[in-house]
C-alpha cells in the first residue's frame, strides 16, 4: 500500500502502545514521526539495557520474553528500514495548536503534526509514607529498572512495600537475581485480594503465575500491613516500622525501601493537548476521556497506560486501536478492530479486578501524621497542606499555589493523588471534588541554556 494522504502523524512514546500504533500506520503507507525519551525503543516494562549488556531476553523479561523480543525486533526493523522517523532520547515538553516542542540530544526541536497519538505510558503511583524522602527510598518501578537495565540492586537489605502486581513481580525478580530481601509488605488485605479474584479470572494464566510467584516469596510476604514510618540516618534507611494485619508492631532492618501502589497514568501532554478528564473510582485517579478506540479530541488519540492502566498486553492492543481510529478518521483503509476491542474489554475486566484486589490505600494516606512529607520535591508536609485547605479552600490548584504541593520539579506526579486525599479528608468532600492539577509546560525541567541557545 502506498501513502494516500499527506497528513503527518506524530506518535509520542515507543513502548508497547507506540510501537504497535507505528506498525499499523506503516502498514497503511504512512511514515509516522516517533518521539521517545528512551535510549532504545521498548518503553519501561520492556526496557532494554544499554549496549554492552549480555543477559538474554529470557533472563530480563522471564515469561514475557517472547513479547519483548517481538516488539523490539519489530521496532528495530522499522527504524532500519526508514519507515518511521524516529527521535530517541527526546522529550516532548509542550504542545499547542499543531506544534510539539521537544528537547532532543541535538537541542531544541519543533515538530508539527496533523494528527497526534500520545502513548506516554505510566509511572508508579505513590502514597506518602513518613520518612519516604530519605535517600535510598525508591519507587518499585525504579527497583525493577535498576535490576533490568543496570543489573543492580539499590541496596543490600531491601524492604519492598505497597500493593499491586509489581510488588510480587519485583520481589520475585530480585530474589532470583540474588538480592537480599528483608520483607515484602502489602497494604492490601487477603480479604481484598480474594474479593478481586473472580474478575481476575478473565486472565487465568496471569493469576496462576501470580500465585506461583507469591508462593515462592513464602514468609517474606505479609498482607494487610500498615506502614508506620521509614527510619533513616544520614545515609538512608535503617529500618521500616510497620504493623501486621493483627495490629502487632514490627521493625525490619533495611538499607533500601521500594514503594509503589500500581501505576498512575502519565497524562501531562494529554492535558496540554486539551483532553478532558474524569476521576475513575476503580483506578483512584484522573484518567483522560476517550471513546473505546482512544479518540480524545479532534485529531488527538491516546493509547496504552497513559489512557487506561491495562499493562503491556493491553497497551499493544490500545496502540493498534488508536492507529486504526487515526486511519479511519483520515478516510484510509484500516484493519478490522473488532477482535482487538473484545480483547481490550477482557483486559479491562482483569485490570479493574486487580485494582479492587490491591486497592489504593486511601484510609492510610488520609491518616498520615502532620509531619509527613507529601511533596518530595520541596519537602511540603501533610500539616502544611491541611493548613492551606483551611485558609485557602479545598481545591487542588489553590492548595498548589498556597502550599506548593505540586509546584516542584516532578510537577505533582508523585504528590497529586495523595494531596487530593488530604484535601478531601480535611474538607470532608469526595476525592474527585478536590479537583485535578492543571498541566503546565514544560512537562519536564528544561535547561534554559539549551532552549535559548537553539531558539
Amino acid at each position, binding site marked *: 500500500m502506498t501513502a494516500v494522504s499527506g497528513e503527518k502523524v506524530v506518535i509520542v512514546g515507543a513502548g508497547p502502545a507506540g510501537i504497535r500504533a507505528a506498525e499499523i500506520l506503516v502498514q497503511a503507507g504512512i511514515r509516522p514521526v516517533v518521539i521517545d525519551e528512551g535510549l532504545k525503543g521498548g518503553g519501561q516494562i520492556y526496557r532494554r539495557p544499554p549496549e554492552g549488556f549480555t543477559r538474554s531476553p529470557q533472563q530480563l523479561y522471564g515469561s514475557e520474553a517472547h513479547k519483548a523480543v517481538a516488539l523490539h525486533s519489530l521496532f528495530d526493523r522499522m527504524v532500519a528500514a526508514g519507515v518511521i522517523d524516529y527521535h530517541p532520547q527526546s522529550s516532548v515538553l509542550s504542545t499547542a495548536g499543531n506544534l510539539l516542542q521537544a528537547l532532543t540530544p541535538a537541542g531544541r526541536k519543533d515538530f508539527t503534526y496533523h494528527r497526534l497519538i500520545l502513548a506516554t505510558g505510566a509511572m508508579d503511583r505513590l502514597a506518602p509514607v513518613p520518612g519516604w*524522602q530519605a535517600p535510598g527510598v525508591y519507587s518499585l518501578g525504579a527497583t525493577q529498572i535498576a535490576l533490568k537495565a543496570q543489573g543492580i*540492586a539499590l541496596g543490600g537489605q531491601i524492604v519492598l512495600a505497597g500493593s499491586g502486581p509489581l510488588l510480587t513481580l519485583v520481589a520475585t525478580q530480585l530474589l532470583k537475581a540474588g538480592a537480599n530481601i528483608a520483607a515484602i509488605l502489602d497494604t492490601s488485605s487477603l480479604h481484598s485480594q480474594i474479593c478481586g479474584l473472580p474478575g481476575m479470572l478473565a486472565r487465568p494464566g496471569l493469576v496462576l503465575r501470580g500465585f506461583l510467584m507469591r508462593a515462592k516469596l513464602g514468609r517474606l510476604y505479609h498482607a494487610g500491613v500498615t506502614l508506620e514510618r521509614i527510619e533513616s540516618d544520614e545515609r538512608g534507611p535503617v529500618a521500616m516500622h510497620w504493623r501486621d494485619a493483627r495490629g502487632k508492631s514490627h521493625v525490619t532492618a533495611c538499607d533500601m525501601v521500594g514503594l509503589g501502589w500500581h501505576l498512575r497514568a502519565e497524562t501531562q501532554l494529554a492535558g496540554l493537548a486539551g483532553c478532558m478528564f474524569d476521576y475513575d473510582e476503580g483506578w483512584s485517579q484522573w484518567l483522560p476521556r476517550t471513546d473505546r478506540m482512544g479518540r480524545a479530541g479532534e485529531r488527538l488519540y491516546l493509547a496504552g497506560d497513559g489512557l487506561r492502566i491495562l499493562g503491556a498486553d493491553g497497551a499493544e492492543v490500545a496502540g493498534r486501536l488508536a492507529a486504526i481510529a487515526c486511519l479511519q478518521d483520515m478516510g484510509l483503509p484500516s484493519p478490522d478492530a473488532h477482535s482487538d476491542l473484545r480483547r481490550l474489554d477482557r483486559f479491562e475486566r482483569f485490570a479493574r479486578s486487580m485494582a479492587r484486589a490491591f486497592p489504593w490505600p486511601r484510609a492510610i494516606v488520609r491518616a498520615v501524621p502532620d509531619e509527613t512529607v507529601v511533596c518530595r520535591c520541596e519537602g511540603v508536609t501533610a500539616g502544611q497542606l491541611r493548613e492551606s485547605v483551611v485558609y485557602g479552600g479545598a481545591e487542588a490548584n489553590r492548595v498548589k499555589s498556597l502550599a506548593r504541593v505540586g509546584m516542584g520539579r516532578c510537577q505533582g506526579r*508523585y504528590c497529586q493523588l495523595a494531596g487530593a486525599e488530604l484535601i478531601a479528608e480535611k474538607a470532608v468532600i469526595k476525592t474527585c471534588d478536590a479537583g485535578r492539577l492543571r498541566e503546565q509546560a514544560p512537562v519536564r*525541567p528544561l535547561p534554559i541554556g539549551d532552549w535559548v541557545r537553539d531558539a
Partner: protein
Amino acid sequence: MTSGLQPARSAGRIRRLAETGRPQVRFRLDGVDCAALAGDTVLTAVLVSAHAVRQSEFGPEKRAGFCLMGACQDCWLWQEDGRRLRACSTLIVEGMQLRTAPPEIWP
C-alpha cells in the same frame, strides 16, 4: 524511638548482581577519582561509591534518585563546568567531572 538496628554497610549504596564483565570507565566525583562500568548510568556510577547524589534544597536529607525513569527529577547533579544532568537517564562517559553540589560559578 529508634530501632538501633544497623544493617551491614559497604562503600556505596548499590550492589551489582549481574553484568560485571563490562569495561571500566573512569570519572571524577567531587574531585575524587572513581570507577564505573561502560553502560552504567551516571546514577549507578555515583552510587557505586556514594550513598546520595545531592543535598535536598528543602530539607535536611540527601537525595539518591527515586523513579529511575526521568519522571521525578530527584537525581539532577552538576558537572564541573556548571551544566547539570539527570543522572538516571544519562550514561557515564570516560572523564566526566561530576559534583554533588553546585560549582563555585553557579549563580
